[in-house]
C-alpha cells in the first residue's frame, strides 16, 4: 500500500538531541601543557574531540576519559554551573 512507510530512520547529527546537556563536569584543556598527542580524541567514545583537539561541548557528555587518559594531565574536569 502506498500509505505504508517503512520504519526507516535517516542519518542526522543530533539524532539523540544535544547530549552536552547531560554533562556534570566539563573538560577544560590547558594548551600550555598539551603536546597534541591526540590520545583524548582517540579514546573519546562519541568522537566529540576534533583534529585540532577542540571539544564539541554541544555533544560532550562529560565522561572524563580524555582527562583520565591524558599523559600530560592537560585536561581538567570542571563542574558545570547549571
Amino acid at each position: 500500500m502506498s500509505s505504508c512507510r517503512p520504519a526507516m530512520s535517516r542519518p542526522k547529527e543530533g539524532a539523540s538531541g544535544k547530549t552536552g546537556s547531560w554533562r556534570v563536569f566539563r573538560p577544560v584543556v590547558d594548551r600550555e601543557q598539551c603536546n597534541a598527542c591526540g590520545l583524548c580524541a582517540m579514546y573519546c567514545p562519541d568522537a566529540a574531540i576534533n583534529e585540532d583537539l577542540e571539544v564539541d561541548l554541544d555533544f560532550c557528555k562529560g565522561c572524563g576519559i580524555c582527562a583520565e587518559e591524558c599523559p600530560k594531565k592537560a585536561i581538567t574536569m570542571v563542574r558545570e554551573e547549571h
Partner: protein
Amino acid sequence: MTEIPKEEYILKCTSACAGCPSSLILRYVLKAAGPDTVLVVPACCTSVIQGIYPNTAMNVPVYNVAFAAAAACASGMSEAFSKAGKKTNVIVYAGDGGTVDIGIQALSGAFERETDFLYICYDNEAYGNTGMQRSGSTPIGARTTTTPGGKIHAKKDIDAIVAAHHPTYLATACAAYPQDLFKKVQKALSLPGSKFLHVLAPCPPGWRFSSEKTVAMGKLAVRSGIWILFEREYGKVTINGPSKAALVKPAPLEEYLAGQGRFKGIDQNAIDALKSQAAARALHLQREAEGIC
C-alpha cells in the same frame, strides 16, 4: 595513529551512556570497515542508542533485528550481496546476551554454513540495556540485578565454542586498545568466510565504576590476564603484544576487581576460581600458540 582514517560513521552522537565502551568500539569497527558496510544489530544497547525516529546517528545502513536472529539475517544479506556481485561488508554487532545466550543457535548455524561475514560480540558481561541482568558471559562472583549475591557459575567460553566451528578468523579485542581493534577488524574483513571478534566492553554503570575509568579498566583487564588478546587465523593462535607481557608478569587481579562495584564483597573462593580459570585459559592459549595442542 596515522593509519586510522579520520572519517566518522557515527554522527554526533548516540544516546549511549557517558563513557560507553560500545560507542568507542563501534567507532573503530566502522573506521576499519568503511562506508560500504551494513550493520546487523540484534536487541542490545546499540539497538536503542541510535537516535529517535525518524533520525539516526548511524551513517551506515543498520538493520535492527530480533535477539535470536542476527546471524541468520546476516547470512541472507551476505548471500544476497554475493549474488548481486557486491563486496559490501556484512557485520553483526551484538552484545553478549545476543551472542552467548539468545543468538547462539543462529551464530552456530551461520558459522557452520561458512557464511561470509564478520560477527562482533561486544561483551559487557551482562544484559546492560535492560538493567544488568546476568548473562552466560557474566564472570563468577559478579553482582548483577539477578545475581545479587554474586554469580555462582563461570563465564561461558564463547571463543572456544566458536573456535570449534573452525572459522577463518577469530580474535579477541578490548575497548581500551582501539588500534589493535582497528587492525583486527581490517584483517577479518580481508579474509573470506566466517569471522568472529570478541571485544571486552567495560561498562561504567553495569560494572559500577566511574565513567572516566572505561579505558583504564579495559587496560587493567588485559594487564591482569583476565582478558587475553589473541588471534586465531586459520586455526593458528597468536597471542598479541599487550597480553604477551601480561602473561609473563600479570598485574594483581585484585586491582581489577577492587575498581568495580559489581565485585564488592566477593569471597575468596570466587577470586580463586577467577584466577584458576584465567590461568587455565592462558596456559591453553600459550600451548596452542606454541603448536603443542
